[in-house]
């Protein structure tokens, strides 16, 4: 016995060890694929559960992503209204606009003359008759300034506002700060919700895969015992379970992707209707290919981690008797 063992050990050069290792990996992989196809319905069920659990956080990510796109649009539409003094004429106003264009953090400056302002106001307010009855235009001319918000911090914008207010031609400067605050408060809530849900669902995926593997381990208790009795290493025994966790995860990722695509399809119509109402050309952004890869990778790693934890906890506990 002793002689055999040692001579065998000496005979095992590194190349052979690696070959055996590779072969056993292939065996475990094929074996767990076989197990999956042996009970396709049940494997599909588990994978579907994983898929649903993965689809949800990704769906929320998409939702948040789309919200931020919308918000970005709004960001650009935030503007500073510079009400000029009533005694500033058009020429002065236009040259002031040119000056302001050279300020830092300014995307564009539009001039609205007193007449245009009155006309717009008449249309929007609905006081048609009343305004027509006025002898004098009560409105000032306005410069609409679009800051380059993305590059503008809260401090910077404060500085800009002071700069603008200091101009001698300016009566008042208004910055629609409140709207931005509201927007950020809403996004804040959405982010809170998404984070909570993502954590919950990542836990759910781990639990589901872990639980499935756990029960699979218990189902194959005799197999594990017999394997251990004939000298199988821990790695050898764990391999098929890890592979099946991995496959469940990957399958779950794919199913999640299908679910997301389907949901997007179903949401397309109502979102389009909404966008029309806002006369916006906004359309839902789907998952990119990187997103698909990421989804599968996430599924795979959650599946692997879930089965790994389960395997660590439960295979050790099974000792032959």
């Amino acid at each position, binding site marked *: 016995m*002793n002689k*055999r063992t040692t001579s065998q050990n000496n005979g095992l050069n590194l190349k052979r060890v690696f070959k055996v290792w590779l072969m056993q990996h292939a065996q475990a992989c094929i074996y767990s694929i076989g197990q999956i196809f042996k009970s396709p319905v049940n494997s599909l069920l588990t994978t579907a559960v994983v898929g649903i659990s993965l689809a949800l956080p990704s769906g929320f990510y998409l939702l948040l992503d789309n919200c931020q796109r919308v918000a970005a649009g709004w960001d650009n539409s935030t503007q500073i209204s510079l009400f000029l003094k009533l005694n500033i004429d058009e020429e002065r106003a236009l040259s002031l606009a040119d000056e302001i264009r050279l300020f830092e953090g300014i995307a564009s400056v539009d001039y609205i003359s007193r007449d245009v302002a009155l006309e717009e106001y008449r249309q929007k307010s609905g006081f048609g008759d009343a305004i027509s009855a006025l002898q004098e235009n009560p409105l000032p001319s306005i410069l609409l300034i679009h800051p380059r918000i993305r590059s503008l911090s809260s401090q910077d914008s404060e500085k800009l506002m002071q700069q603008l207010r200091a101009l001698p031609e300016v009566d008042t400067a208004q910055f629609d700060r409140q709207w931005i605050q509201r927007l950020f408060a809403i996004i804040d809530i959405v982010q809170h919700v998404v984070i909570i849900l993502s954590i919950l669902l990542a836990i759910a995926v781990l639990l589901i895969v872990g639980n499935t593997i756990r029960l699979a381990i218990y189902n194959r208790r005799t197999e594990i*015992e017999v394997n251990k*009795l004939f*000298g*199988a290493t821990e790695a050898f025994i764990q391999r098929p379970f890890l592979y099946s966790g991995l496959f469940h995860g990957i399958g779950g990722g794919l199913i999640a992707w299908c679910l997301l695509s389907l949901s997007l399809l179903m949401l397309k119509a109502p979102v389009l209707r909404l966008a029309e109402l806002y006369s916006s050309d906004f359309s839902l952004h789907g998952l990119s290919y990187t997103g698909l890869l990421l989804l599968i990778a996430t599924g795979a790693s959650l599946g692997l981690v879930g089965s790994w934890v389960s395997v660590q906890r439960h295979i050790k506990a099974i000792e032959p008797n």
Partner: protein
Amino acid sequence: MIRFTDVSMQYGDGNEALRKINLYIEQGAMVYVTGRSGAGKSSLLRLIALIERHKRGQIIVNGQNLERVTGRRIPLFRRNIGFMFQDHRLLYDRTVFDNIALPLVIAGHRYQEIRKRVHAALDKVSLLNKEKVSPIALSGGEQQRVGIARAVVHRPALILADEPTGNLDPALSWDIMKLFEQFNQVGVTVLIASHDLDMIKKMNKSIITLREGKLLTHIGLTINE
């Protein structure tokens, strides 16, 4: 090959299964372990295969002190043992072939080699025609023979067989015993637990007798405490 020095063994619930066992089995010997139901035959074999661990005393198997064989060393140690269980322990979701191939797969042999050896083992227990069925489709005795084939297929240096013929008729039992004898003749150490006293006598080999966990006779000698 196997040496027990004052070995005692308890199961978790305080059940003392073996008490102060001293015995020595030479390399290449073929020895029977007998005793009544619950005497400790299976426990003795389990200690040697490291399925259970002893509490007191010292066991040396093949020059290795079993107390030192722990963790990662256990698998390698077990690969040199062929174990045949009292309750068969076959895997019902695999074919007979796959069941018997298990020790070879674990050791990482290649398919051609596995096929050759498994067929040889199946032939020895006269089950070549059952190669592709699941063990669930076999009679009790046939399952027992599959268990025997699995225990010998990887040509271990030590074979431990627990009641290998409990479900076999006398003629078949005799064939199986002759099979073990063949292995023994090429140098394999064989240890068989059995209660079939008639056959044991006919085989004319060394006998160890247990009673309530104590050694009663050792290789023909009565032990006096």
